[in-house]
């Protein structure tokens, strides 16, 4: 029974780890020099999902510049997608990449082979601990809907003031 529970926890952790953060995020120390909006994930009530750069978060809508080729079926009038707030179900902000601790996972797991009988206890404990540490480290700089209110999203947008009046959406790349 305990083994099944441990396996379930491990499976969940592996699934969680597989929900990786986007590539190409800046390091935390590069944030003061970032000029673009952060990587953004938004899921709509109709189930569709957009991933890309957060361009602006205004009172009535979000503006996202989807990453190229990520959504081949998406219809785009211009580069930027305008998403009304009432269509938004969930969102996440990825503002920097975390430290990778993935090497702890195989190393600590292999070490438990030296524990003999105790490995049945120490191996799952080490797997859970290292996978948890790696997962949380990778998601250190991720903000979920509950972590950041819609009115705070501007902090991470390319245009925190909203879309500039003189800039046309189709000109934004």
């Amino acid at each position, binding site marked *: 029974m305990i083994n099944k529970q441990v396996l379930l926890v491990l499976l969940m952790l592996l699934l969680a780890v597989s929900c990786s953060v986007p590539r190409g995020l800046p390091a*935390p*120390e590069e*944030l*003061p*020099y970032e*000029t*673009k909006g952060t990587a953004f994930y938004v899921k709509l009530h109709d189930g569709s999902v957009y991933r890309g750069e957060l361009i602006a978060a205004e009172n009535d809508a979000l503006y996202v510049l989807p990453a190229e080729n990520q959504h081949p079926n998406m219809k785009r009038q211009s580069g930027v997608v305008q998403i009304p707030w009432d269509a938004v179900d969930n969102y996440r902000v990825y*503002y*920097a990449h*975390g*430290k990778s*601790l993935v090497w*702890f996972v195989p190393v*600590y797991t292999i*070490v*438990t082979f*030296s*524990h*003999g*009988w*105790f490995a*049945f*206890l*120490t191996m799952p404990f*080490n797997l859970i*601990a*290292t996978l*948890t*540490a790696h997962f*949380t*480290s990778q*998601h*250190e*700089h*991720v*903000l979920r809907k509950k*972590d*950041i209110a819609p009115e*705070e999203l*501007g*902090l*991470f947008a*390319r*245009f*925190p*003031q909203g879309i*500039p009046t*003189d*800039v046309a959406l189709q*000109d*934004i*790349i």
Partner: protein
Amino acid sequence: MRQNIITRFVLISLAAGLLSACSPVRDIRFRAHYHDANDLLYAAAQESDLPYLKAHLKDGGIVLFSESWDVDMQKEIVTGDGQHFDFNRRFVRDGEMVVSVDSVVIFETNKMPKNNDQSRISSLSVLGGLNTALGIYCLAVPKACFGSCPTFYLDGDQEFHYARAEGFSNAIAPGLEYTDIDALNIYTTTGGTFPLTMKNEAYETHNVRSLKLLAVPREEDQRVYHTQDDKFYLARQRVELTSARSGNDDVTYLLNKDDQTEYFSLADPDNLRSTEEVFLQFDNPGNIQQLGLVAGFRQSLMTTYLLYNAFDHMGNLYGDLLATVSIAEDDAPTIADVLYEQLGGISAYLRNSHKNEWVYQGTWYETGPIAINHQLMLLDAAHPEEEIHIKLEMNRGMWRLDYLHLTEIIEKVVPLEIQAERVYANKKHDEDLLQIMLDGDAYLVSQPGDTYRFEFELPAIHDDYELFLSATGFYMVWGREEWQKEKDLYSLYMMRHHPGRYLKKHAQAYKEYEKVMEEAFWGSRVKHQIISGHDK
């Protein structure tokens, strides 16, 4: 008990510390926006270091200032070295920047975001330290971590905590080969094929000459038990324990059920040879011709520790000395014999209330800390008319008791001997191995990690059998490089010829071992309670 709580506290604290260290920091205050230059100046004045500054321009462009910048409120300008980018973040120019406050729609400051990386890595380092410590310990005392002797499992029970038997634990050299009989303690059998899995979970080479199932037919409510001298008795009726005491502790709840909730005491810190007593009381069993006492018990890791100490002391003579044991023609006692003499088994005494004395009934002794032994002792208490009082005497920290009860002996019986019909090596049927097992003179040689499955056919003539396993053979513990450095023949001599002094001298070292290994090893699965006068 206190030690148990402390250990759990440490483990829970470690887990809690690790989890809390793992929690990400969800704090967005490293970044701030100001619509007014005065607010920016006020905020900057609160900081010891000037924050990084970005000026978001009305046209969508942005100016990144380097670490030094200044706001001149009289001229309403922001100055400093920086870089200018347009609304698509294409580079425009860099160098000395003079930006009118009016052209800025938002000032953005950034500090380094907080994170938990350091505490996360610290926690993993602590875990790494514990892993290494346990690894080193297991290398130093491998028998404590890597098992011992062939272990036998029923289908579905694959963890060593559920091993049903461990074969010929004392046979550490060819010359010490013997047949070991263990009760498999199965409440009902369904007939037909009976599978048994044998594993080598140690750094040892196991040499199995014979493996037989001993089966005795039984009716409903009957059990068959074997005694220390391997005689078999059919029994019925179970007289439950009504009271068990160790010192001032009531340990009845630990000993009244066959449930692996074990009674166990810690060793004496001053002398490993130290006796303890457990007092048992049973209700009047009524008119019974022959009464028997049945117990479930196994050893702690004490003998394992001492045996490995002996190997350590042998150093590079390990192989030679074991070979000597095998070819010796005299009856000189082995170290295992010496340890038995010193530490003894579980001796039972029956209270004679008329003479007001304890009368010796017998002693149980089985080497091995893994599988629980289930054995019978005949009591000299015909037609008891009163409550039965029994005293157990045993070495402190040496034995684990699971249960005790009385039973009525019906008759002495002779079991059927059943040979394996099929043998599987790593799930593959192997006819050659079967022939080896049936040969009687050949050995099945099992190396670390090997798993064999034996299938026996129970005779259809009876519905239900009590089953025992009879295993004949010997094993050889693999020598280790560390032993080359640790030769200590004087200690070996002391262990063999002055064991009393040796056991006194090594008590403290064993206590250190016991503190870590006993609690961690058994606490991981089996419920038990440690009773020790030194830890109350």
